[in-house]
């Protein structure tokens, strides 16, 4: 049975002007890459990736982009929010040399992934990109974790100017990686894909979700029709290469195709 649980916000961590991390005391039992559906019962229930997950607590990192997330930013510690999940597929856990490529608010789920990869003895490199220095999240957390870590911004406010794809391209030229993971804006992943013809990889996708349990069909991707809430959101290379809609269009709440 699909179960809902209503939890107090244990901690709110301000990451940037527009990005907050919400921590809840609850044994969610999620794997890296999975997501929850979150609601405040004021209208709207939205998917958020697990940024970290322990036996006694888990967290999500949220970017303020619209009506729902704006309301989230008005919540206080101690307020209730209601979740269901975890849902969806999770990342392959490699114990070899791996590269994690994050962009914007897509990076946090890679944190839980990196922690899990380290646990099994993987050699982990993380590259993280954002528009500006102020938009970049989780830098300190990755550094504390003890992974090899590089970041970059589009406006060059950290020195180097570019995207995490640029960082990844350089690394891939000079070193061998056994597995590549990416999460972030779809066009970033699309750009990254063309660098990865010879690599095994998994990408974390986003599509409009309603039921999150694989029946409403809103999150299916063309042309194969796999559901991002069940077979995704983590997609292995073998699926990614088949997706004709990847980087071209997605579907909105009505099911209409919307060009990127």
């Amino acid at each position, binding site marked *: 049975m699909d179960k809902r649980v209503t939890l107090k916000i244990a901690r709110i961590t301000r990451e940037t002007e527009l990005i907050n991390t919400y921590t809840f005391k609850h044994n969610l039992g999620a794997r890296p890459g999975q997501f929850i559906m979150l609601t405040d*019962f004021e209208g709207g229930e939205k998917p958020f990736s697990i940024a970290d997950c322990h036996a006694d607590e888990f967290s999500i990192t949220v970017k303020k982009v619209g009506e729902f997330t704006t309301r989230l930013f008005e919540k206080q510690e101690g307020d209730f929010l209601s979740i269901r999940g975890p849902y969806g597929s999770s990342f392959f856990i490699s114990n070899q040399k791996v590269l994690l490529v994050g962009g914007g608010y897509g990076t946090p789920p890679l944190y839980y992934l990196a922690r899990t990869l380290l646990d099994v003895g993987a050699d982990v490199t993380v590259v993280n990109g954002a528009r500006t220095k102020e938009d970049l999240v989780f830098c300190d957390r990755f550094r504390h974790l003890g992974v090899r870590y590089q970041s970059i911004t589009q406006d060059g406010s950290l020195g180097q100017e570019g995207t995490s794809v640029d960082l990844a391209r350089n690394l891939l030229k000079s070193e061998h990686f056994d597995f590549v993971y990416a999460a972030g804006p779809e066009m970033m992943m699309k750009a990254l894909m063309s660098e990865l013809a010879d690599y095994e990889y998994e990408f974390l996708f986003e599509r409009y979700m309603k039921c999150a349990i694989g029946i409403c069909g809103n999150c299916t991707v063309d042309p194969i*029709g796999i559901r991002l809430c069940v077979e995704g959101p983590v997609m292995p290379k073998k699926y990614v290469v088949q997706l004709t809609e990847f980087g071209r269009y997605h579907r909105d709440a009505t*099911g*209409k195709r919307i060009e990127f």
Partner: protein
Amino acid sequence: MHNRLQTKFSGVTVDSPLVLPAGVMGMSYSGMSYSAVHGAGVITSKSLTLQPRTGHKGPVMAGFEGGFLNCMGLCNPGIQDGLREVNDFKERSDTPVIVSVFATNMDDFLQLTHHVNESAGDFLELNLSCPNVFDEFGIPLAASAEEVGRIVGAVKGISKKPVIAKLSPNVYDIVSIACAAQDAGADGLCMINTVGPGMLIDTKMVKPVLHNKFGGLSGPCIKPIALKLVYQTSSAIDIPILGMGGVTYGNDAVEMWMAGAQIIGVGTAIYYRGIEVFNMINQEILAYLDEMGYETINDIPRLEPIL
């Protein structure tokens, strides 16, 4: 080899009696493909309206013991984009498609019919079972035999496709409504739509779980209600029935057949058993045929009708 699951619905041959029902996975051509590839013999589109609809705000779905509540709110991309998905699917597949449409007044139903006439769809299904239709139709449409007859008759007059009327279980006397649809020329009935509606409450936040407060019940727990209504209706009419409601295992499908259904919808079960549920149920029906010594699905007996 001879396909032991092949049967016919209103003149159309289907390779499996299992139908993807309206509103489940049928939002995109790829969702239709994915279901057909996994063994659905007939595909129904999401219920399409003239204009796109975003549907209700979330939560739109909530689980409970034995099923789910949903209040999707008829979200759909509108008839034009919706039929594009149907046509894209039909370009890739021979699987018959039922185009489900929904409207709140006669004029819209007729316009929708014209659109569907020009599509690659095989059937037109009129969703007459939304509990909240107060536009032209004074009382909820689904509850009035007279209104149901009037719409079916008018649509039948112009439709190039066989017309299926989808009925609501939440009426006082479904048989009189089924008869009205048949008398008005319906080629088949689809029943049942979701039951109730019902609600759930979050006891920490003191709020209805669904943003729309109420939602219709689907899943295993509505099967007894579906079987009863299909049985009662099939005893009273001659047109074929697309039966659905909680069918999850092969045995449920056989029950639905015995109650009088000709083809059988499988919706919420996708949650419980994965998209592979269609192939699984097909296999389970075959195993049943073997066990009982029946050659094909069409040999499975029906219950004695109610007199």
